[in-house]
């Protein structure tokens, strides 16, 4: 059985949280560039140009593109034939987050307790998600997610009679209510099905897909496109100042569900979508 020392996981996480904050991924750069060609409002175009200037400065000076360097979401896909050695995996991931945020001069935004509210000063705890997959590799996906867009996210347990029309209405209303608060043009992660908790996770995982990559199921890919068109009718535009590009993409992930249920979760991501991955 292949062995991997958890120190390698910590080092990879430390590197990924910094890379994510300093350099926008190619898929997001492409999506913003496409948005510039689609945006009709002059003020919207001005905002999009500022965003391009911003990520160019961030990359060349190695400073965070946004001051909210986020909560570290760490998705681990662990091969079932891999043996992790050398210590506690959760501790190693948190050690990597602390190292990356401290050495990279990233903002520490995490608190010890939601009511007591004392800053932990190293941006831990990370949000860690583990999937066991075939093989002997470890894939680490990191998303440093800002609080502004996360706060605009919603979950609703719809009655089955609501159907696709009801789901669509809820998703569009959630995006409209988020408006400028969520730093549009946004990326809309949607989870449909599962149960209360799986649905929220589906919405979050939908954001991991490279921006604009359609759902492999053609029916769901068509619904993603339909939603994107509905959202871009809202007129919200870049930073909510009015325009024709409110979202860069809508990604939907689905799962089977109980006969009584139609859970729908909307996890909103800002234009500054910072995600990076590595396979060890």
């Amino acid at each position, binding site marked *: 059985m292949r062995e991997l020392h958890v120190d390698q996981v910590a080092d990879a996480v430390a590197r990924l949280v910094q890379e994510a904050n300093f350099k926008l991924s190619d898929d997001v750069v492409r999506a913003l560039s496409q948005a510039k060609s689609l945006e*009709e*409002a002059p*003020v919207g175009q001005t*905002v999009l140009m*500022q*965003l391009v*200037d*911003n*990520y160019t*400065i*961030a990359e060349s*000076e190695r*400073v*965070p*593109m*946004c*001051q*909210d*360097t986020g909560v570290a979401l760490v998705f681990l896909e662990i091969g079932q034939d891999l043996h992790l050695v050398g210590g506690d995996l959760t501790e190693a991931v948190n050690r990597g987050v602390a190292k990356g945020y401290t050495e990279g*001069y*990233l*903002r*520490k*935004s995490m608190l010890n307790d939601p009511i007591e*509210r004392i*800053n932990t*000063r190293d941006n831990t705890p990370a949000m860690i998600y583990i999937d066991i997959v075939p093989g002997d590799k470890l894939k680490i996906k990191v998303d440093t997610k*800002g*609080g*502004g867009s996360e*706060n605009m996210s919603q979950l609703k347990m719809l009655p089955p009679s609501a159907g696709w029309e009801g789901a*669509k*209405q809820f998703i*569009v*209303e959630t995006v*409209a209510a988020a*408006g*400028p*608060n*969520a*730093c549009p043009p946004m990326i809309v992660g949607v989870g449909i099905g599962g149960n209360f908790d799986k649905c929220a996770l589906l919405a979050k995982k939908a954001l991991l897909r490279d921006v604009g990559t359609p759902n492999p199921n053609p029916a769901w890919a068509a619904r993603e496109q339909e939603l994107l068109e*509905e959202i871009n*009718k*809202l*007129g*919200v*535009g870049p*930073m*909510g*100042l*009015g*325009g*024709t590009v409110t979202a860069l993409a809508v990604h939907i992930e689905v799962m089977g569900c109980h006969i009584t249920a139609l859970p729908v979760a909307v996890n909103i991501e*800002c*234009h*500054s979508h910072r995600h990076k991955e590595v396979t060890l």
Partner: protein
Amino acid sequence: MARIHVTTPITPEQARQIRAGDEVIITGEIYTARDAAHKRMVEDLAAGRPLPFNPEGAVIYYVGPTPPKPGQVIGSAGPTTSYRMDKYTPEMLRQGVKLVIGKGYRSDEVKAALVQYGGAYLVATGGAGALLARTIEAAEVVAYEDLGAEAIRRLRVKDFPAICINDAHGGDQYFAGQSQWVKPDAMVKPKPPVASE
């Protein structure tokens, strides 16, 4: 819509001159404050203690910057979402603060307070923290150092770019801008402004 250059502190006349949709270019000293700092300022006032800065004509920027790298004045410094300060903003305006800068929608109470006290709500481009930091020439913590990124800092800015969303006359640029681009068959329409003169 106009481009207006202002230098702090802001006079009552200047604040009333700024209209929704105007580009407002700010030079001078501005103060940073976020959720935790606002909570503490309001507690200080209730306990009879003065604010940590002179509020008369002051500008508050809702930002929690990243730590500066060695040799830098400040790290990344874009606006945070403003609605979390809604509970505290009317009191800040009552104390004499004239401009507040953040991003996103404000409550009806804040919009009414802007009309009542003659202030304006401005936004800067969210997420453009590296770009906006270039307009910041100096930064020093003036209060609540224990709050870290949320401490109150005095920033010296030169030509900081903002756009007025809500003015002292009930104007609302989010409504105006979105109304112009919303499609007739959109599932949700922009929310009309409520406060007016």
